[in-house]
């Protein structure tokens, strides 16, 4: 029952935001600032995580396929898993952990310090001012971070395949490129856009509805990252089914 009420409140928040965008547009300068901040903030940790996910994909692919005589399929395994699933979801997880938590805590602090009321009194719509630049920023940046994440995985997988597992480099690359199509990248970008919207709207909503005091901000931040992660992972299953369900 409580979950239903929360979902209703969230839907109401998204509606209010959509109406605010229609009436007040978006502050363009803020969009670039947010996009830059989200990108810079999330990139270092994303590179580290994506690199080590790539290494492990290569190892697991090699150990799984070798008994079947398919050790050279490592490249295909890394590229398929990376482009279709892990690239988008890992980039989303890192952005949720870094940028999403910052959005929730920043807006939460603004709420408890009456800065959101101050925006209202200054006749500035807080949804248009605080949510829209973050949302557009994240939707612009997360696909780019996803591409970076995918190529980092492929590169680290290559290093493990060639220098640790002794596979041929050109074989790795041939299978890596054979396993995927341009549409896989397009679908990966679509997933990234969807995840970006989820992370931003959920995090901002928790910030706007945050309880009083530092405890309220902490709770809002915690819930923002947990809810974003859960919704992204769940919706990733359905997106994969829709996008790849009928394909090979």
């Amino acid at each position, binding site marked *: 029952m409580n979950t239903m009420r929360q979902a209703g409140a969230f839907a109401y928040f998204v509606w209010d935001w959509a109406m605010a965008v229609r009436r007040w547009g978006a502050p363009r300068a803020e969009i670039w600032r947010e996009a830059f901040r989200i990108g810079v903030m999330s990139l270092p940790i994303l590179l580290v995580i994506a690199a080590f996910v790539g290494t492990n994909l290569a190892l697991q692919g090699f150990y799984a396929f070798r008994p079947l005589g398919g050790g050279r399929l490592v490249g295909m395994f890394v590229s398929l898993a990376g482009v279709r699933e892990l690239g988008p979801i890992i980039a989303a997880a890192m952005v949720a952990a870094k940028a999403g938590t910052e959005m929730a805590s920043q807006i939460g602090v*603004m709420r408890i310090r009456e800065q959101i009321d101050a925006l209202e009194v200054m006749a500035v719509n807080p949804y248009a001012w605080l949510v829209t630049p973050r949302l557009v920023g994240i939707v612009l940046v997360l696909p780019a971070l996803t591409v970076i994440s995918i190529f980092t995985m492929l590169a680290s997988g290559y290093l493990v395949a060639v220098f640790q597992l002794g596979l041929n480099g050109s074989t790795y690359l041939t299978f890596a490129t054979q396993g995927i199509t341009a549409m896989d990248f397009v679908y990966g970008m679509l997933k990234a856009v969807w995840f970006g919207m989820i992370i931003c709207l959920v995090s901002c909503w928790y910030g706007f509805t945050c309880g009083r005091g530092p405890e309220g901000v902490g709770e809002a931040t915690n819930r923002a990252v947990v809810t974003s992660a859960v919704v992204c992972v769940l919706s990733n299953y359905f997106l994969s089914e829709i996008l790849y369900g009928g394909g090979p």
Partner: protein
Amino acid sequence: MIEIIDLHKRFGELVVLDGVSLSIPPGETTAIIGPSGTGKSVLLKHIVGLIEPDSGQVICFGTDMAQASERERYAVRRRFGMLFQDGALFDSLSVGENVAFPLERHTRLSPREIRDRVEEKLAVVGLPGTWDRAVSQLSGGQRKRVGLARAIVMEPEVVLFDEPNSGLDPLTSDQIDTLILDMKQALGITFVIISHDIIGTVRVADHIAMLNAGKLVAWDRTEAVLRSPEPVVRAFLRRNLVLPEAEGEQAHLPRAEEARRG
């Protein structure tokens, strides 16, 4: 200018405002006083339309704030300035950027003109040349003064103050009160002040409204309220002032008059 008509508001079981009616006189300073939790801040937030009443009306410049569309409400709010309890400054912006914020949103002034206007208002509040200073470097009193500069930078017709003296030492409180008096004289602005600082209130207010348990128990010119026979009013004011005898009797106001003289 601002009419509050039979305003009712409750949060759950708690009745916060219980039939409050009040007319704020233009060009004068009205203080709203009362014990903690009696709905003063809630009343102030009704005036600018941040809270909607359960029943009753708040009419600002002819607009019913609860019934108005968002655009109409925003048009009215551009005629208001508001100083929040801790200034409500944006931490990510510098002092100058905070004060310039409403100008950048609502005017077509050039960056040079905005800078000049902001510097002028910062000078009015006694903080000239602080454009680049970070908000985190400001003391409590300075935050309030920057908040005040932001509240007046659009040259509003009404400025609302939510506890302008809370958390300030007596000297800084006195400076804020002096600023309010100076601005009223120089700019002819209507001020509405919520305060617990009775001495400061008596000094700056032309009118006093007192709320108790959600009801308006006193509303008159300051001198008349000080002579109110209402026991709850006298009990509240006596904590800080040596009061005159109740209305109809002759007495002088030693501390209150001192306070008004500053």
